[in-house]
């Protein structure tokens, strides 16, 4: 699909480089994914640092994870990657050429400070005389003309604001040049134009903000205590202008009554933005939760038009936040904000029944929507791509990441308003697409990362360095970090201990390398978040410092301490000290371990032959790898075969047919229809899967990676007379009829649709995401067929997110009636006189404030999506599933298609309900991610393998019996039998060590002595 419509590069080998425009999370992620796939990246960023909006966020919904903490490792990685060339203060001027061979002209503005020479000491800022508004802090604080955007910024180099600098504008001052010890100030730097040869272009410029005139309408700029959500976000943040205190700008007091106003500049024709910004409902809940954390007493009210929390796990997170935070949710849209005499802000709104309400608040937060980026038109001209009517990049349902110009792709908010996980997904997808387009150029322009030689520490006394992280206020707000640091200094063999605001930032990594060198550390302990997410980052830093990565240990004082003991600071501090003491005790026993490289079988297995599986298989094959596609049914295609039109009126089955043909004809794809995965063994790089095939012998396939695209089914309702009355059908059944030559029987005048049948309730706890869009689509199809047809849609929240809002508006304009029902008061459906008579639908109409009964000639149920039972595959692959039976991804924000087991990926309905365009993008992402180990060609597993002491081994063979991986074997020696580890197969579980009768076996990093040291250290507390 997307990939199919991109013509292959003409003539010759394509370039192995890609230009990524925009250094937000989407751009950074796609850059990292691209280099992993073997491509060089020019990352072009308009501002002085990468990180984008995510770097300005305090927390992220729904986990309230610290935004910078999860982003910073990626920024650091991008900054360190020798194959990513970051060009800051730069923009794309023109793009000529063809896919595979573009020439991009990039204009680079001077920073006036030499990036290479700058040490990031900050003296220039200190001496700079010219104050400017601090853009990073939404102008709620001031900065200087010579500055860095934020302390963890990448590159970690300062720069000078040319518009403000006294020297550049008035030839005075120049103090920074005197203050700079590194001599990095370059007033003579000139703007330059760089010509880059690239094979593909990825546009990730992010979003623009809703204009100030819209905000002013709600009193922003006029009343001090009306804040945008972006401003409020900075107030919440520990590194923000108030150090994380939420105070009213007018009197610096804590607001006691806070209102969040949704849809500011979204779903609003008057400002030209009819679309829904898709993220504000979530971030408002997040901000409300954090406001609650800041003040347990504040009254917090959220004003919604519809609550659109349709993402995976979002509804559950929202419900929990509202219950725990004791928020008031009001369905209403205050038209304006007024100032009243006592310095408070008056809101007026009409409720569902049309009654007017008035109330005063201390602080009003405007949930500001997203717009297309301010330079959208310039970009469109430079790249010669089409924009949609809202100035976002124009894309197609079936090629969601392709712009109108072949070889130019779009991801993130410029593709349409979206959240972080969807942006990251698209980033992975576009990397896969580029990798397919430029497959022959792979590895032609990349270099291998070089690390300094490892220092031999074998004979040295342990010299432990301890780094305790504040994690903004995530740890520091609960745990007394400095006390923990001081305590660490008293522990045996600790020669250095310090605390950092964010241990994972790039400047801290550089600092760590310096400290390791200066204090000749040979063991490093970081007390911060969890090793599950952050260990690789710090281990890379150890390698940069010439230390073996196994000489590292983490103490989890956030996820398992400050976050779970938020109201017990003293106890949490004690626990953190204990954790550090135990980590140091273990660290003293760590030894350098030899690395091993294991080969990767360069092929993939895709399970499921629906839209997701087909797209993934095709993308992997186009990237150059053999793919086996397993489908249970006789024919490929999955549930898309049940759809008869997309929202633009095209028949998706046509597109599907083309896709199936391409898959079936592809020389690198083997299709196993009527087949089922019977067993899986192995691990990333080396899976072996047995496939049971109907009427044939089973097939055994060796493959390096696995993509799960097992899909889902429509929920089968047992309510609303479904199956009893012929008048009642599901939306899919209506779709089927609408695709037939004579869709509607005569005499059908009234259609009623009921939303959330099965979803958001007892049967399926989650929102099925697509049903609102499908109801709108079918309502419009009906209306266009017969404008006289009366249609009533009974809904809880119309979740017409993104550009679907256009359909919502169109439906209302065509006379479709929408009526909200409350979860506790669902519509009642009763049988008519005869078995096939119209059914009576009774519902409470809030506007009339009474019950209404309608005779429905046709009752259409918008049923939810039920995932295919994942348990068997989950057990075979050892991957977790959620309570709702969807596969659980490794990280909901930043690893949305990776499963926690390396080498296994998920896409489509098996991950969560989603529409076709989203499925395609996610499948492309899974394919892009899956090809990373394949492109690398080898894996370097953590050296935590077992080893046998031949002196102690008695050759009993227990280890060989119990090892689940055949990774330990008995061999004959002259005197007898001995066991030996086969390192390449060992996964480090340690069963052999626990079962060895003579304790002859020990594990790398998880040694007997190390664990005993932890146990003793525990006892010393």
């Amino acid at each position: 699909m997307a990939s199919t419509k991109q013509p292959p590069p003409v003539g010759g080998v394509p370039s192995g480089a890609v230009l990524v425009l925009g250094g937000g999370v989407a751009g950074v992620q796609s850059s990292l994914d691209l280099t992993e796939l073997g491509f060089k990246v020019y990352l072009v960023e308009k501002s002085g640092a990468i990180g984008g909006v995510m770097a300005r966020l305090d927390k992220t919904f729904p986990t309230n994870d610290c935004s910078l903490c999860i982003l910073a490792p990626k920024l650091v990685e991008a900054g360190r990657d020798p194959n990513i060339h970051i060009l800051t203060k730069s923009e794309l001027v023109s793009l000529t050429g063809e896919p595979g061979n573009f020439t991009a002209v990039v204009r680079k503005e001077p920073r006036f400070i030499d990036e290479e020479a700058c040490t990031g000491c900050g003296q220039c800022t200190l001496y700079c005389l010219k104050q400017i508004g601090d853009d990073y802090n939404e102008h709620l604080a001031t900065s200087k003309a010579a500055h860095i955007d934020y302390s963890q910024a990448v590159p970690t180099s300062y720069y000078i604001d040319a518009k403000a600098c006294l020297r550049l504008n008035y030839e005075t001052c120049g103090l920074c040049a005197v203050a700079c010890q590194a001599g990095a100030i370059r007033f003579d730097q000139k703007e330059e134009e760089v010509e880059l040869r690239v094979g593909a272009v990825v546009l990730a410029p992010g979003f623009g903000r809703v204009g100030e005139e819209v905000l002013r309408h709600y009193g922003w700029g006029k009343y001090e205590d009306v804040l945008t959500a972006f401003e409020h976000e900075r107030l919440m943040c520990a590194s923000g202008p108030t150090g994380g205190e939420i105070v009213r700008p007018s009197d610096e007091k804590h607001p006691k009554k806070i209102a969040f106003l949704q849809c500011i500049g979204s779903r609003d024709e008057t400002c030209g933005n009819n679309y829904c910004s898709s993220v504000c409902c979530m971030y408002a809940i997040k901000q409300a939760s954090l406001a609650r954390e800041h003040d347990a007493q504040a009254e917090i009210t959220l004003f919604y038009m519809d609550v659109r929390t349709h993402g995976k796990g979002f509804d559950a997170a929202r419900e929990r936040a509202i219950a725990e935070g004791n928020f008031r949710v009001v369905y209403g849209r205050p038209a304006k904000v007024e100032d009243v005499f006592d310095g408070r802000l008056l809101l007026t709104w009409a409720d569902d029944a049309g009654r007017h309400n008035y109330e005063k608040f201390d602080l009003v937060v405007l949930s500001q929507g997203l717009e297309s980026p301010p330079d959208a038109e310039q970009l469109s001209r430079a790249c010669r791509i089409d924009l949609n009517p809202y100035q976002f990049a124009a894309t197609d349902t079936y090629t969601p990441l392709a712009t109108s110009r072949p070889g130019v792709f779009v991801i993130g908010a410029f593709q349409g308003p979206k959240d972080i996980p969807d942006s990251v997904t698209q980033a992975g997808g576009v990397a896969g697409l580029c990798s397919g387009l430029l497959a022959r150029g792979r590895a032609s322009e990349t270099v291998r990362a070089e690390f300094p030689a490892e220092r031999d520490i074998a004979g040295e006394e342990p010299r432990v360095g301890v780094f305790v992280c504040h994690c903004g206020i995530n740890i520091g707000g609960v745990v007394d970090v400095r006390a923990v640091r001081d305590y660490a200094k008293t522990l045996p063999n600790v020669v250095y201990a310090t605390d950092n605001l964010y241990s994972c930032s790039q400047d801290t990594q550089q600092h760590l390398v310096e400290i390791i060198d200066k204090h000749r550390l040979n063991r490093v302990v970081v007390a911060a978040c969890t090793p599950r997410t952050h260990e690789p980052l710090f281990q890379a830093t150890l390698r940069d410092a010439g230390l073996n990565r196994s000489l590292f240990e983490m103490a989890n004082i956030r996820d398992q301490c400050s976050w779970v003991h938020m109201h017990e600071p003293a106890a949490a501090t004690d626990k953190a000290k204990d954790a550090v003491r135990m980590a140091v005790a273990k660290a003293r026993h760590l030894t350098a371990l030899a690395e091993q490289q294991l080969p990767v079988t360069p092929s993939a297995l895709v399970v499921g032959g629906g839209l997701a599986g087909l797209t993934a298989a095709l993308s992997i094959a186009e990237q150059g790898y053999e793919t086996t596609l397993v489908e249970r049914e006789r024919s490929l295609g999955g549930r898309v075969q049940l759809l008869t039109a997309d929202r633009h009126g095209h028949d998706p089955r046509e597109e599907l047919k083309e896709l199936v043909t391409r898959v079936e004809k592809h020389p690198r794809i083997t299709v196993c229809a009527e087949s089922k995965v019977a067993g899986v063994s192995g691990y990333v790089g080396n899976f072996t899967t047995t496939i049971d095939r109907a009427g044939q012998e089973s097939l055994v396939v060796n493959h390096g990676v696995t993509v799960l695209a097992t899909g889902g089914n429509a929920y089968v309702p047992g309510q609303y007379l479904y199956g009893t009355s012929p008048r009642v059908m599901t939306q899919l059944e209506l779709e089927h009829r609408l695709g037939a030559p004579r869709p509607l029987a005569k005499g059908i005048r009234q259609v009623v649709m009921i939303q959330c049948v099965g979803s958001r309730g007892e049967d399926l706890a989650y929102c099925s995401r697509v049903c609102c869009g499908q109801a709108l689509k079918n309502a419009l199809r009906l209306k266009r067929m017969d404008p006289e047809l009366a249609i009533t849609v009974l809904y809880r929240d119309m979740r017409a997110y993104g550009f679907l809002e256009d359909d919502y508006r169109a439906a209302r304009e065509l006379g479709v009636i929408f009526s909200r029902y409350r979860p506790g008061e669902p519509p009642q459906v009763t049988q008519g006189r005869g078995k096939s008579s119209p059914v009576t639908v009774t519902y409470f109409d809030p506007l009339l404030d009474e019950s209404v009964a309608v005779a429905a000639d046709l009752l259409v149920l918008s049923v939810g999506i039920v995932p295919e039972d994942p348990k068997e595959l989950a057990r075979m692959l050892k991957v977790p599933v959620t309570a709702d039976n969807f596969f659980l991804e490794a990280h909901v924000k930043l690893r949305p298609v990776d499963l926690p087991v390396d080498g296994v990926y998920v896409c489509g309905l098996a991950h969560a309900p989603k529409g076709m365009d989203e499925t395609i993008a996610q499948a492309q992402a899974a394919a892009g991610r899956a090809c990373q180990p394949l492109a690398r060609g080898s894996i370097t597993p953590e050296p935590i393998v077992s080893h046998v002491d031949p002196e102690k081994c008695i050759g009993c063979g227990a280890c060989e019996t119990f090892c689940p991986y055949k990774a330990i074997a008995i061999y004959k020696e002259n005197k007898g039998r001995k066991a030996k580890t086969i390192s390449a197969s060992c996964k480090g579980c340690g069963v052999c060590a626990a079962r060895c009768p003579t304790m002859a076996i020990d594990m790398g990093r998880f040694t007997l002595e190390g664990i005993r040291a932890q146990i003793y250290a525990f006892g010393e507390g």
Partner: protein
Amino acid sequence: MTEPYNPKILGFLCNWCCYTAADSAGVGRYQYPPNLRVIRIMCTGRLDPSFPLEGLAGGADAIFVGGCHPGECHYQDGNYHALVSAALVHETLARLGVNRERFLIDWASAAEGPNFVKIITRFTKRAAELGPLGENEGLDPAALRQRLAEAAEFARGRKIRTGLLNAAKEMMKGGDFKRDTIASLVHAKCDKTLAELVGGGAGRGEG
């Protein structure tokens, strides 16, 4: 009113399920009592039978081992091996007269942060009720810890471990991974040695 006892609890959590569950409890800001200290191991199969005994000897009032649900072990059957080690710990505690509830092995999958919180909250409450190690048992704490340390040493000895590996072999052969089945196997293979080394009343660990 007296303050409830603040027990010291040491936990061994497997990387793939329980440790992840504990992290996700944090991400979800689920609150639980701050008594648990955690040692991360890749798999509960790594749990040496001596570790819990050593933990109690070293100052813990209670020990928790957390792994993946039966049948869901990331390494196939490590948690069954953990049940073998656990059975020995319970046998030993019974012989030493220590309340078996001071040692708990339980499961929480990576997706079950709230379940982990429930388990730990309940276990902490129970450990608080039991009070300092030895008190509830009417034993001299110092002497008890000394005996536990010796028991840990025995658990590292060849005799007991041979019994355990034979029990584990039978477990794998029988394919019955129920707790009491495993406990019976361990009892059958280790009871004599335990009686010899640890002494005390012949107590069946399970039940």
